[in-house]
């Protein structure tokens, strides 16, 4: 029954409905990419991200996995930049360039996971609140509003203090406190989607809540979720750095925020060892900016009325 509409399509004489759907999806991806390409800032962000991803993924090849080892540290503590150590050494005599590259793995990972968690919560809350109206939605949105005005850092610090120190805690603390924006966005989109006639039809044809939410609403909010995730990664990376700087992260893991915290504890700020302090901060800023640029470009391709990128 539901395949009828697909069959009626004129262009589907030879291809089955699945192939058709695939083709259509491919077309929309191509269209998306064509439009995305026109956003120069977004493109720059994408290139920067690709570079960082490459660096992070190839770290085991370029800098071996013993960069973080303290007993076999190659240099003297706090060496200034030289040919051997382009960014100098840290307080143990480890190569700071290697640490920076290795740190990207943790920072990116935490950023991705926390953003994924946050967006997952936000999407679930948003879709269900938009789909089931009434008291359930009211309560849910009340909670969302409450989280929205909470000072998130205060909440995240509190959470990170309560739980044992680990990367998981950091991911959780960021994810659990940062979802409300996504929830609001997704709910608004859900309401818009559900008012379209074909949803009515799907409901009339006996589509249950799950069917409507997963088959019709979710695909339609997906682009928005994608944009939101990209933006959320940027703020999650900043949040990770912040928590590490405040010392509530796992001190044994090399991350950019952790490097900054190390630099501060070693007194690099006042002793003029800029090479300890400056590169991790720039790395954080560049990656956060790159994700933001990508997110804004995606957003404006999907919804030109927002007037973001022009």
């Amino acid at each position, binding site marked *: 029954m539901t395949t009828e509409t697909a069959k009626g399509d004129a262009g589907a004489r030879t291809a089955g409905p699945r192939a058709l759907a695939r083709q259509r999806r491919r077309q929309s991806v191509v269209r998306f990419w064509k439009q995305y390409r026109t956003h120069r800032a977004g493109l720059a962000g994408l290139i920067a991200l690709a570079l960082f991803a490459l660096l992070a993924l190839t770290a085991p090849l370029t800098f071996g996995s013993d960069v973080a080892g303290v007993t076999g540290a190659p240099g003297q503590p706090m060496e200034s930049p030289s040919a051997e150590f382009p960014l100098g050494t840290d307080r143990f005599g480890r190569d700071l360039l290697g640490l920076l590259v290795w740190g990207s793995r943790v920072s990116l990972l935490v950023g991705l996971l926390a953003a994924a968690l946050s967006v997952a919560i936000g999407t679930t809350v948003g879709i269900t609140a938009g789909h089931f109206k009434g008291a359930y939605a009211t309560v849910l949105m*009340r909670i969302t*509003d409450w989280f929205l005005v909470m000072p998130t*850092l*205060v909440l995240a610090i509190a959470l990170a203090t*309560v739980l044992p120190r680990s990367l998981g805690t950091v991911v959780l603390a960021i994810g659990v406190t940062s979802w409300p924006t996504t929830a609001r966005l997704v709910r608004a989109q859900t309401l818009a989607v559900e008012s379209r006639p074909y949803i009515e039809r799907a409901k009339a044809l006996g589509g249950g809540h799950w069917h409507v939410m997963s088959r019709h609403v979710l695909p339609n909010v997906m682009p928005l979720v994608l944009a*939101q995730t990209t933006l959320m990664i940027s703020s999650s990376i900043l949040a990770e750095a912040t928590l590490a700087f405040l010392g509530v992260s796992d001190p044994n893991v090399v991350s950019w925020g952790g490097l900054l915290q190390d630099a501060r504890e070693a007194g690099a700020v006042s002793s003029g060892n800029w090479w300890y302090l400056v590169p991790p901060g720039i790395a954080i800023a560049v990656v956060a900016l790159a994700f933001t640029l990508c997110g*804004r470009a995606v957003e404006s391709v999907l919804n030109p009325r927002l007037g973001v990128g022009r």
Partner: protein
Amino acid sequence: MTADAPSAAAVKAAAPAVRGPRARTGTRYLRYGAGKVGGAAVSLLAVLVTGFFLFRLIPGDPVKTMTGGRPISEEQLAAYRREFGLDLPLWEQFTDYCGKALTGDLGTSYQFRAPVIDKISEALPNTLLLTGTAFVLYTVLGIVLGTRSAWRHGGLGDRLNTGLALTLYSIPSFWLGLLLIIVFSVGIGPIPGLFPTGGMESGSEEGFAYVLDVAHHLILPVVTLVAVEYGQTLLVARSALLDEMGSDYLTTARAKGLRDDLVRRRHAVPNALLPTVTLVFVNLGRTVAGVILVETVFSWPGLGGLFYQALSVPDLPLVQGLFLFFAAAVIVMNTLADLVYPLLDPRVGR
């Protein structure tokens, strides 16, 4: 810190309650206001509950922490528990705490042996000075630059403006603060150390010299806060104005022969301003986060520093009190913004 991504859509969705009453009749407004105040009350209650239970989860015995590992007998420990009401069942502690919190009694700090409310009121003016100055500056700066950007959107100025805002927005505030200290406090190369490295006052000035002294200490922390926060306002103001610019009345205004500049200043900007200001209030939570970091880096004797210090002890009553205070402050400000909004926005009555 985390909630608000610098996207126009996010910013729009972040406005929880910018929906005014449909008609601006007195009763409607009252009902609307009551709804807002009621909602705020519920939120405050939720904060009260969270504050109590969240920090009860911190492992360890607060009394043993409080006595700092000094030798102490079981009887003395019990006496302390009685003194701080920790011997009561949890629910009784909770009702006790709620009752007291409503009368402004937030308990006694373990480490300072002073009422929490005293510690808060001691540090509050300092934080207000820092936050208030930064808040006004970044709001004004964001709106001015944002409207200019929107008016000539797509131009070089706009691109530079948004680019700079996004870049500063992506910089960790504590890192920026440390760099500013290195460059402008200590001095680097030809730049002399112009500003104090931390604190709020030298402690030896009086009268007008004191005001100048505090202003002198205020500059770097405020610059840091403004730099990382104004981008948000800029983007909101920009997109609000871009929305507004599509409106018919602006075309009419222009058709009347009004100068571009005037159209912007008299018509477009005021209309775009209200949602912007409201959203600025929504983002106060982020500013609180910024304040904690900036106060830590610049040794500013305010609430942020106090909170961090209380957490590391942990000084439960103080942590709890500050958590309540931060959350309540943001909720109250938001509610005020909600209440004032329909009175000011000419379109809400439409």
